[in-house]
Protein backbone atom coordinates (compact mmCIF):
# COMPACT_ATOMS: atom_id res chain seq x y z
CA UNK A 1 0.00 0.00 0.00
CA UNK A 2 1.22 3.51 -0.78
CA UNK A 3 1.82 6.30 1.75
CA UNK A 4 -1.19 8.21 0.47
CA UNK A 5 -3.39 5.16 1.01
CA UNK A 6 -2.28 4.91 4.66
CA UNK A 7 -2.79 8.66 5.08
CA UNK A 8 -6.32 8.43 3.65
CA UNK A 9 -7.06 5.42 5.86
CA UNK A 10 -5.90 7.19 9.05
CA UNK A 11 -7.88 10.37 8.32
CA UNK A 12 -10.86 8.30 7.19
CA UNK A 13 -10.89 6.39 10.49
CA UNK A 14 -10.80 9.62 12.51
CA UNK A 15 -13.60 11.30 10.50
CA UNK A 16 -15.67 8.14 10.51
CA UNK A 17 -15.20 7.80 14.28
CA UNK A 18 -16.30 11.37 14.89
CA UNK A 19 -19.38 11.16 12.65
CA UNK A 20 -20.37 7.71 13.92
CA UNK A 21 -20.28 9.02 17.50
CA UNK A 22 -22.24 12.15 16.54
CA UNK A 23 -24.93 10.06 14.81
CA UNK A 24 -25.09 7.70 17.79
CA UNK A 25 -25.63 10.66 20.14
CA UNK A 26 -28.30 12.06 17.80
CA UNK A 27 -30.06 8.66 17.80
CA UNK A 28 -29.97 8.48 21.59
CA UNK A 29 -31.32 12.05 21.83
CA UNK A 30 -34.24 11.09 19.59
CA UNK A 31 -34.99 7.95 21.64
CA UNK A 32 -34.90 10.00 24.85
CA UNK A 33 -37.23 12.62 23.35
CA UNK A 34 -39.73 9.84 22.58
CA UNK A 35 -39.37 8.41 26.11
CA UNK A 36 -39.89 11.82 27.72
CA UNK A 37 -42.97 12.48 25.56
CA UNK A 38 -44.43 9.10 26.52
CA UNK A 39 -43.76 9.51 30.24
CA UNK A 40 -44.97 13.12 30.13
CA UNK A 41 -48.21 11.92 28.57
CA UNK A 42 -48.63 9.26 31.25
CA UNK A 43 -47.93 11.59 34.15
CA UNK A 44 -49.97 14.50 32.78
CA UNK A 45 -52.89 12.12 32.25
CA UNK A 46 -52.47 10.91 35.81
CA UNK A 47 -52.36 14.52 37.06
CA UNK A 48 -55.57 15.51 35.27
CA UNK A 49 -57.31 12.33 36.43
CA UNK A 50 -56.16 12.88 40.02
CA UNK A 51 -57.48 16.45 39.98
CA UNK A 52 -60.80 15.23 38.58
CA UNK A 53 -61.02 12.56 41.26
CA UNK A 54 -60.20 15.12 43.97
CA UNK A 55 -62.91 17.54 42.75
CA UNK A 56 -65.36 14.62 42.61
CA UNK A 57 -64.48 13.63 46.18
CA UNK A 58 -64.85 17.22 47.42
CA UNK A 59 -68.26 17.56 45.71
CA UNK A 60 -69.44 14.32 47.25
CA UNK A 61 -68.18 15.40 50.69
CA UNK A 62 -69.93 18.78 50.37
CA UNK A 63 -73.16 17.07 49.34
CA UNK A 64 -72.89 14.66 52.25
CA UNK A 65 -72.27 17.45 54.78
CA UNK A 66 -75.23 19.35 53.33
CA UNK A 67 -77.48 16.36 53.89
CA UNK A 68 -76.16 15.90 57.39
CA UNK A 69 -76.90 19.57 58.19
CA UNK A 70 -80.55 19.03 57.33
CA UNK A 71 -80.57 21.31 54.29
CA UNK A 72 -83.15 20.47 51.63
Amino acid at each position, binding site marked *: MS*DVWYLALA*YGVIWLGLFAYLFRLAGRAEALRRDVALLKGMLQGEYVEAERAQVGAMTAAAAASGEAGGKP
Partner: protein
Amino acid sequence: MSRYRLAVFAQPAAGRVLFVRRAGLLVLAVVLLLAALVEALVIAPTEAEMGDLQRIFYFHVASAWAAFLAFFVVFLASVAYLRTRAVLWDVFAASAAETGVVFVSMALVSGSIWARSTWGTWWTWDPRLTTTLLLWLIYVSYLVMRGMVEEGQRRATFAAVFGIVGFVDAPIAFMSIRWWRTMHPTVLTGGGFNMEPAMLPALFLSLAAFSFILLYLLLLRAGLERSQQEVTELRRHISWMDERGSWP
Protein backbone atom coordinates in the same frame (compact mmCIF):
# COMPACT_ATOMS: atom_id res chain seq x y z
CA MET B 1 -45.74 15.30 40.72
CA SER B 2 -44.87 19.02 40.70
CA ARG B 3 -41.17 18.18 41.08
CA TYR B 4 -41.27 16.13 37.89
CA ARG B 5 -43.27 18.75 36.05
CA LEU B 6 -40.59 21.30 36.92
CA ALA B 7 -37.68 19.01 36.12
CA VAL B 8 -38.83 17.73 32.77
CA PHE B 9 -41.56 19.91 31.35
CA ALA B 10 -40.44 23.39 32.30
CA GLN B 11 -37.23 23.39 30.27
CA PRO B 12 -37.99 24.37 26.67
CA ALA B 13 -36.81 28.01 26.91
CA ALA B 14 -33.52 27.13 28.61
CA GLY B 15 -33.18 24.20 26.21
CA ARG B 16 -33.50 26.51 23.19
CA VAL B 17 -30.76 28.85 24.48
CA LEU B 18 -28.50 25.87 25.11
CA PHE B 19 -29.28 24.50 21.64
CA VAL B 20 -28.30 27.81 19.97
CA ARG B 21 -25.06 27.97 21.99
CA ARG B 22 -24.22 24.37 21.17
CA ALA B 23 -24.97 24.96 17.47
CA GLY B 24 -22.58 27.96 17.52
CA LEU B 25 -19.91 25.82 19.15
CA LEU B 26 -20.42 23.10 16.51
CA VAL B 27 -20.05 25.62 13.67
CA LEU B 28 -16.82 26.96 15.24
CA ALA B 29 -15.48 23.41 15.74
CA VAL B 30 -16.27 22.38 12.15
CA VAL B 31 -14.68 25.56 10.70
CA LEU B 32 -11.54 24.96 12.80
CA LEU B 33 -11.50 21.29 11.81
CA LEU B 34 -11.69 22.11 8.09
CA ALA B 35 -8.96 24.76 8.48
CA ALA B 36 -6.80 22.22 10.32
CA LEU B 37 -7.42 19.65 7.58
CA VAL B 38 -6.29 22.08 4.85
CA GLU B 39 -3.28 23.16 6.93
CA ALA B 40 -2.28 19.54 7.68
CA LEU B 41 -2.79 18.05 4.21
CA VAL B 42 -1.96 20.97 1.93
CA ILE B 43 -0.07 23.83 3.57
CA ALA B 44 2.27 22.08 6.07
CA PRO B 45 5.63 21.14 4.49
CA THR B 46 6.33 17.51 3.62
CA GLU B 47 8.61 15.82 6.14
CA ALA B 48 12.00 14.76 4.74
CA GLU B 49 12.14 11.15 6.00
CA MET B 50 8.54 9.95 6.21
CA GLY B 51 7.09 12.06 3.41
CA ASP B 52 3.29 12.46 3.34
CA LEU B 53 2.84 9.76 5.98
CA GLN B 54 3.96 12.23 8.64
CA ARG B 55 0.72 14.18 8.00
CA ILE B 56 -1.13 11.51 10.01
CA PHE B 57 0.67 13.04 13.00
CA TYR B 58 -1.52 16.19 13.19
CA PHE B 59 -4.91 14.51 13.73
CA HIS B 60 -3.36 11.55 15.61
CA VAL B 61 -1.79 13.87 18.22
CA ALA B 62 -4.96 16.00 18.36
CA SER B 63 -7.09 12.89 19.07
CA ALA B 64 -4.74 11.84 21.87
CA TRP B 65 -4.76 15.42 23.26
CA ALA B 66 -8.58 15.48 23.29
CA ALA B 67 -8.62 12.09 25.06
CA PHE B 68 -6.20 13.27 27.76
CA LEU B 69 -8.28 16.45 28.24
CA ALA B 70 -11.46 14.36 28.55
CA PHE B 71 -9.88 12.05 31.14
CA PHE B 72 -8.66 15.09 33.06
CA VAL B 73 -12.28 16.31 33.10
CA VAL B 74 -13.32 12.88 34.47
CA PHE B 75 -10.72 13.27 37.22
CA LEU B 76 -11.77 16.84 38.12
CA ALA B 77 -15.49 16.05 37.98
CA SER B 78 -14.96 12.93 40.13
CA VAL B 79 -13.14 14.96 42.80
CA ALA B 80 -15.88 17.60 42.65
CA TYR B 81 -18.58 14.92 42.99
CA LEU B 82 -16.99 13.37 46.08
CA ARG B 83 -16.67 16.83 47.65
CA THR B 84 -20.14 18.16 46.83
CA ARG B 85 -22.27 15.07 45.96
CA ALA B 86 -23.87 17.18 43.22
CA VAL B 87 -25.28 14.96 40.42
CA LEU B 88 -24.10 17.46 37.81
CA TRP B 89 -20.45 16.43 38.39
CA ASP B 90 -21.33 12.76 37.97
CA VAL B 91 -23.07 13.63 34.69
CA PHE B 92 -19.95 15.46 33.47
CA ALA B 93 -17.63 12.62 34.54
CA ALA B 94 -19.71 9.99 32.71
CA SER B 95 -19.91 12.15 29.58
CA ALA B 96 -16.20 12.94 29.56
CA ALA B 97 -15.28 9.27 30.05
CA GLU B 98 -17.35 8.16 27.04
CA THR B 99 -16.06 11.01 24.86
CA GLY B 100 -12.49 10.28 25.98
CA VAL B 101 -12.84 6.62 25.01
CA VAL B 102 -13.95 7.69 21.51
CA PHE B 103 -10.92 9.98 21.10
CA VAL B 104 -8.38 7.55 22.54
CA SER B 105 -9.78 4.84 20.21
CA MET B 106 -9.20 7.16 17.24
CA ALA B 107 -5.65 7.89 18.47
CA LEU B 108 -4.90 4.16 18.87
CA VAL B 109 -6.28 3.22 15.45
CA SER B 110 -4.63 6.11 13.57
CA GLY B 111 -1.37 5.36 15.43
CA SER B 112 -1.62 1.73 14.46
CA ILE B 113 -2.02 2.68 10.79
CA TRP B 114 0.99 4.98 11.07
CA ALA B 115 2.99 2.19 12.79
CA ARG B 116 2.14 -0.26 10.01
CA SER B 117 3.44 2.11 7.36
CA THR B 118 6.61 3.24 9.19
CA TRP B 119 7.56 0.35 11.52
CA GLY B 120 6.05 -2.43 9.39
CA THR B 121 3.71 -3.68 12.13
CA TRP B 122 0.17 -2.79 13.21
CA TRP B 123 1.03 -3.13 16.89
CA THR B 124 4.07 -3.39 19.14
CA TRP B 125 4.28 -3.46 22.95
CA ASP B 126 6.07 -0.13 23.06
CA PRO B 127 5.70 1.74 26.43
CA ARG B 128 3.63 4.59 24.92
CA LEU B 129 1.34 2.23 23.02
CA THR B 130 0.93 -0.12 25.97
CA THR B 131 0.15 2.61 28.52
CA THR B 132 -2.31 4.21 26.08
CA LEU B 133 -4.04 0.87 25.51
CA LEU B 134 -4.20 0.49 29.30
CA LEU B 135 -5.82 3.94 29.50
CA TRP B 136 -8.43 2.80 26.96
CA LEU B 137 -9.11 -0.37 28.98
CA ILE B 138 -9.44 1.60 32.24
CA TYR B 139 -12.09 3.95 30.87
CA VAL B 140 -13.96 1.20 29.00
CA SER B 141 -14.11 -0.63 32.37
CA TYR B 142 -15.29 2.60 33.97
CA LEU B 143 -18.20 2.77 31.51
CA VAL B 144 -19.00 -0.94 31.94
CA MET B 145 -18.99 -0.48 35.73
CA ARG B 146 -21.42 2.44 35.42
CA GLY B 147 -23.75 0.24 33.44
CA MET B 148 -23.62 -2.52 36.07
CA VAL B 149 -24.52 -0.50 39.18
CA GLU B 150 -28.18 0.53 39.13
CA GLU B 151 -28.57 2.67 42.21
CA GLY B 152 -27.71 6.27 41.30
CA GLN B 153 -25.74 7.46 44.31
CA ARG B 154 -23.75 4.23 44.70
CA ARG B 155 -22.93 4.23 41.01
CA ALA B 156 -21.79 7.86 41.15
CA THR B 157 -19.57 7.22 44.20
CA PHE B 158 -17.96 4.08 42.73
CA ALA B 159 -17.45 5.86 39.42
CA ALA B 160 -15.88 8.89 41.11
CA VAL B 161 -13.35 6.74 42.96
CA PHE B 162 -12.66 4.80 39.74
CA GLY B 163 -12.31 8.08 37.80
CA ILE B 164 -9.70 9.39 40.26
CA VAL B 165 -7.67 6.18 40.56
CA GLY B 166 -7.88 5.46 36.81
CA PHE B 167 -6.40 8.83 35.94
CA VAL B 168 -3.07 7.74 37.46
CA ASP B 169 -2.26 6.07 34.12
CA ALA B 170 -2.70 9.30 32.12
CA PRO B 171 0.55 11.03 33.24
CA ILE B 172 2.36 7.67 32.97
CA ALA B 173 1.20 7.33 29.34
CA PHE B 174 2.24 10.93 28.65
CA MET B 175 5.69 10.61 30.25
CA SER B 176 6.38 7.05 29.04
CA ILE B 177 8.40 8.26 26.03
CA ARG B 178 10.77 10.08 28.41
CA TRP B 179 10.96 7.44 31.13
CA TRP B 180 11.53 4.36 28.95
CA ARG B 181 13.24 3.50 25.68
CA THR B 182 10.64 3.78 22.96
CA MET B 183 10.21 3.83 19.19
CA HIS B 184 7.47 6.44 19.49
CA PRO B 185 8.54 9.91 18.23
CA THR B 186 9.04 12.56 20.94
CA VAL B 187 7.53 15.85 19.83
CA LEU B 188 7.47 17.84 23.06
CA THR B 189 10.89 17.93 24.69
CA GLY B 190 12.38 20.02 27.49
CA GLY B 191 13.66 22.43 24.82
CA GLY B 192 10.28 22.92 23.09
CA PHE B 193 8.76 21.34 20.00
CA ASN B 194 11.00 18.85 18.22
CA MET B 195 9.74 19.71 14.71
CA GLU B 196 9.94 22.24 11.88
CA PRO B 197 8.44 25.63 12.88
CA ALA B 198 6.47 25.62 9.58
CA MET B 199 4.61 22.51 10.82
CA LEU B 200 3.48 24.11 14.07
CA PRO B 201 0.41 26.00 12.70
CA ALA B 202 -1.08 22.69 11.47
CA LEU B 203 -0.45 21.12 14.87
CA PHE B 204 -1.91 24.02 16.87
CA LEU B 205 -4.96 24.31 14.58
CA SER B 206 -5.61 20.58 14.97
CA LEU B 207 -5.28 20.80 18.75
CA ALA B 208 -7.67 23.78 18.86
CA ALA B 209 -10.19 22.07 16.53
CA PHE B 210 -10.21 18.87 18.58
CA SER B 211 -10.51 20.83 21.84
CA PHE B 212 -13.66 22.55 20.56
CA ILE B 213 -15.08 19.28 19.22
CA LEU B 214 -14.45 17.73 22.61
CA LEU B 215 -16.25 20.61 24.32
CA TYR B 216 -19.21 20.29 21.93
CA LEU B 217 -19.48 16.51 22.34
CA LEU B 218 -19.10 16.84 26.10
CA LEU B 219 -21.99 19.31 26.36
CA LEU B 220 -24.15 17.25 23.99
CA ARG B 221 -23.43 14.03 25.88
CA ALA B 222 -23.96 15.71 29.28
CA GLY B 223 -27.39 16.93 28.11
CA LEU B 224 -28.28 13.36 27.13
CA GLU B 225 -26.99 11.94 30.41
CA ARG B 226 -29.10 14.45 32.35
CA SER B 227 -32.19 13.60 30.30
CA GLN B 228 -31.47 9.89 30.78
CA GLN B 229 -31.30 10.32 34.55
CA GLU B 230 -34.61 12.25 34.50
CA VAL B 231 -36.26 9.52 32.43
CA THR B 232 -34.99 6.92 34.91
CA GLU B 233 -36.44 8.95 37.79
CA LEU B 234 -39.79 9.29 36.00
CA ARG B 235 -39.89 5.56 35.27
CA ARG B 236 -39.12 4.83 38.92
CA HIS B 237 -41.91 7.21 39.95
CA ILE B 238 -44.38 5.51 37.61
CA SER B 239 -43.43 1.99 38.74
CA TRP B 240 -43.74 3.16 42.37
CA MET B 241 -47.26 4.38 41.57
CA ASP B 242 -48.01 1.07 39.87
CA GLU B 243 -46.86 -0.86 42.94
CA ARG B 244 -48.91 1.29 45.31
CA GLY B 245 -51.87 1.16 42.96
CA SER B 246 -52.11 4.93 43.34
CA TRP B 247 -53.19 5.60 39.76
CA PRO B 248 -56.66 7.15 39.81
